[in-house]
């Protein structure tokens, strides 16, 4: 018996879509109401999601799958694509995160954006984003998923460039769109390959069981060669790399911080960037069938986790620290997925959605309170003017740093534990090193922002943000603290809930004992925080002088290993040169030359031809005569 709430699933994406439509056309007239309307609609979607969850919990684990067929989307011969929504534990987890965190961020944005002249449009975009994100996670086939995938990319573009009067914002929006497009194009090729090999895009026929529950994955599917599966998995992963800002397509995410802070929290921390992780987990059957693809996921994730953490160490812009941190944490999720620990990846995703959204929104509160100051060098001592923000942001930071018993601790510890017990020692060591770096960069952020003396006039005049902004922060802080109830390791509520979809993680037995692992993880986090306290909090070290002494290293990290500059020099400059060649030589000379040449030749021909047209009737008559005589001669001579 299907719970009745399941039949309402179409409302989950439909409500934000309706909100987007209303706010797009009538946002100006609604004024402040626009924000409340958008928040209320998403909250309603959240309520339905919760109802779906409770309905699902009443079912046996093997029955927790429901597909709602809305309408036939594409029907071409044997190729069918339906607008089908899929409810299973994985998609329910995702819609709860999207609607839950999304609603809080919507409410926060009412306060954050209150003086913006395009208030209504902002909420229209936010709601539109929520719609596409929900379509992405609810899709039952890859094409519908791709629709959501591209839609969130579009909304990301619109929202990063929301303050498009600033050239940097417009540029960042373009950069984000174009960079992710590289991955998206690969993903589209992957979809085409799926159609060729499987003849369908439907999950129920593409994802054929090699693990997980038979109810979710059919046992028999088309025979597809190993090479083809690897190619498909890698192409899908390329899309995930772009969307989730993994190396080498990570460069857009730090720049995306040009967008309003609620956007950074919603799209570039909690939801859209995690779509890549969702895609890998959803398609894990393909990745496992390939094997190679899983290794690629693991390696890319690990590189990103370490690399982005080092870059986060040297950023001065409070939001850029968090952006690199997000990239790094997403790397951890891919590491988990690459080790087949999909439940751990999803747990990290959920926990990260809470504490990173919290950190971003707190950063927004800091920026709002400190009169649009984003540079941490100009902050300091904000603890006393904004105590609530300082408290919740510290909670988020401690959660991210991985201090027991906050959500971040369990999330990160689970992944490291799996790396150790499954015998992947190098992954474990590098992951632990990354965890140390995480504690250092987030500790640095907290100490520079909230402790010490105010280092600028703006920081001195700072004041606390309104309740509409701080209330969501408190709720998120509770999530960042108590997220551990979902899982405290490989076992737990969330892994148990997801088990029918992703199976159980079984590798183990190697590596260190659980107690030792926890001690090491905690020790590393505390060490990291202690180091930053000594450097930035104790007042004994002149960190600005230290920075000058280490300036080559500092610049290297601040410029994120010069990757952006390298892309600019090796790809940007030749690309611009090629474009200039195409525009000024190929187009202006060759193409235009040909087109204009045809015109000039026609003109010249006409100039010659018009001489014949004298306007004297006699000339015409003579021409008749000559013509007639000519024809007669011709005919006569032929006969």
């Amino acid at each position, binding site marked *: 018996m299907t719970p009745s709430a399941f039949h309402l699933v179409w409302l989950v994406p439909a409500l934000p879509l309706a909100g987007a439509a209303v706010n797009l056309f009538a946002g100006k007239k609604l004024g402040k109401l626009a924000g409340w309307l958008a928040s209320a609609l998403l909250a309603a979607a959240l309520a339905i999601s919760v109802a779906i969850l409770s309905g699902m919990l009443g079912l046996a684990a093997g029955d927790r799958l429901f597909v709602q067929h809305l309408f036939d989307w594409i029907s071409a011969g044997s190729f069918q694509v339906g607008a089908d929504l899929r409810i299973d534990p994985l998609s329910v987890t995702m819609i709860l995160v999207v609607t839950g965190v999304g609603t809080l961020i919507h409410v926060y944005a009412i306060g954050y954006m209150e003086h913006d002249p395009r208030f209504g449009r902002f909420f229209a975009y936010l709601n539109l984003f929520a719609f596409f994100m929900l379509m992405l996670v609810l899709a039952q086939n890859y094409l519908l998923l791709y629709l959501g995938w591209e839609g969130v990319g579009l909304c990301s573009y619109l929202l990063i460039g929301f303050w498009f009067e600033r050239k940097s914002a417009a540029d960042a929006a373009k950069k984000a769109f174009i960079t992710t497009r590289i991955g998206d194009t690969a993903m589209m090729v992957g979809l085409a390959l799926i159609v060729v090999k499987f003849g369908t895009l439907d999950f129920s026929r593409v994802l054929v069981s090699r693990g997980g529950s038979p109810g979710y994955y059919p046992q028999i599917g088309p025979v597809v060669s190993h090479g083809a599966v690897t190619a498909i998995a890698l192409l899908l992963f390329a899309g995930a790399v772009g969307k989730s800002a993994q190396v080498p397509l990570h460069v857009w995410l730090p720049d995306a911080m040009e967008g309003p802070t609620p956007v950074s929290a919603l799209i570039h921390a909690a939801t859209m960037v995690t779509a890549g992780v969702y895609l890998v987990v959803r398609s894990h059957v393909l990745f496992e069938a390939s094997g190679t693809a899983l290794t690629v996921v693991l390696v890319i994730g690990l590189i990103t986790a370490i690399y982005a953490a080092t870059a986060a160490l040297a950023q001065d812009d409070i939001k850029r620290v968090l952006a690199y941190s997000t990239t790094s944490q997403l790397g951890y999720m891919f590491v988990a997925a690459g080790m087949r620990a999909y439940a751990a990846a999803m747990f990290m995703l959920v926990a990260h959605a809470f504490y990173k959204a919290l950190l971003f929104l707190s950063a927004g509160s800091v920026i709002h309170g400190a009169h649009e100051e984003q540079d941490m060098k100009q902050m300091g001592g904000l603890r006393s003017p904004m105590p609530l923000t300082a408290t919740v942001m510290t909670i988020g930071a401690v959660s991210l740093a991985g201090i027991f018993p906050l959500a971040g601790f369990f999330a990160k510890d689970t992944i490291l534990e799996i790396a150790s017990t499954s015998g992947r020692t190098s992954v474990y060591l590098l992951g632990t090193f990354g965890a140390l770096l995480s504690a250092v960069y987030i500790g640095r952020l907290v100490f520079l922002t909230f402790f010490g003396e105010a280092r600028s006039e703006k920081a001195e005049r700072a004041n606390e943000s309104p309740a509409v902004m701080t209330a969501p922060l408190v709720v998120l802080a509770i999530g960042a603290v108590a997220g551990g109830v979902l899982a405290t390791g490989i076992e737990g509520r969330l892994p148990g809930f997801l088990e029918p979809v992703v199976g159980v993680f079984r590798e183990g037995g190697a590596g260190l004992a659980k107690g030792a692992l926890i001690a090491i993880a905690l020790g590393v986090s505390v060490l990291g925080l202690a180091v930053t306290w000594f450097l930035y909090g104790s007042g004994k070290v002149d960190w600005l002088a230290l920075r000058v002494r280490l300036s080559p290293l500092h610049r290297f990290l601040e410029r994120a290993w010069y990757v952006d500059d390298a892309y600019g020099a090796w790809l940007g400059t030749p690309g611009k040169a090629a474009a200039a060649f195409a525009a000024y030589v190929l187009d202006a000379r060759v193409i235009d030359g040909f087109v204009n040449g045809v015109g000039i030749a026609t003109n010249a021909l006409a100039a010659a031809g018009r001489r*014949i*047209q*004298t*306007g004297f*009737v*006699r000339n015409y008559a003579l021409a008749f*005569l000559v013509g007639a005589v000519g024809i007669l001669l011709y005919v006569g001579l032929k006969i």
Partner: protein
Amino acid sequence: MRTPIAYFLVTSGLLFAIGTVGVLIRKNALLIFMSIELQLNAVNLSLIAFSRMHGSLNGQVLAFFSMVVAAAEVVVGLAIIVSVYRRTGSVSVDDVRELRG
């Protein structure tokens, strides 16, 4: 003794040539018009001559037909010339050269 066909044809050719030259060298629209009539009648003459030679009435019928057409053409042509005169105050075809390229 019948008059040989060649006589008629030579006369017809001469008339046609005179008409052609008239069309080509005269400026006055009326004279050009008359020259065209001359050409038409030159052709009529040869038509009738051939008709008689072959003992068939076809040529004569055709000649009548062309006369009728010529009469109709005169009506139209003269009307045009009159209206051109009203417009330009002249019947010289060189004054009407709006179609010059």
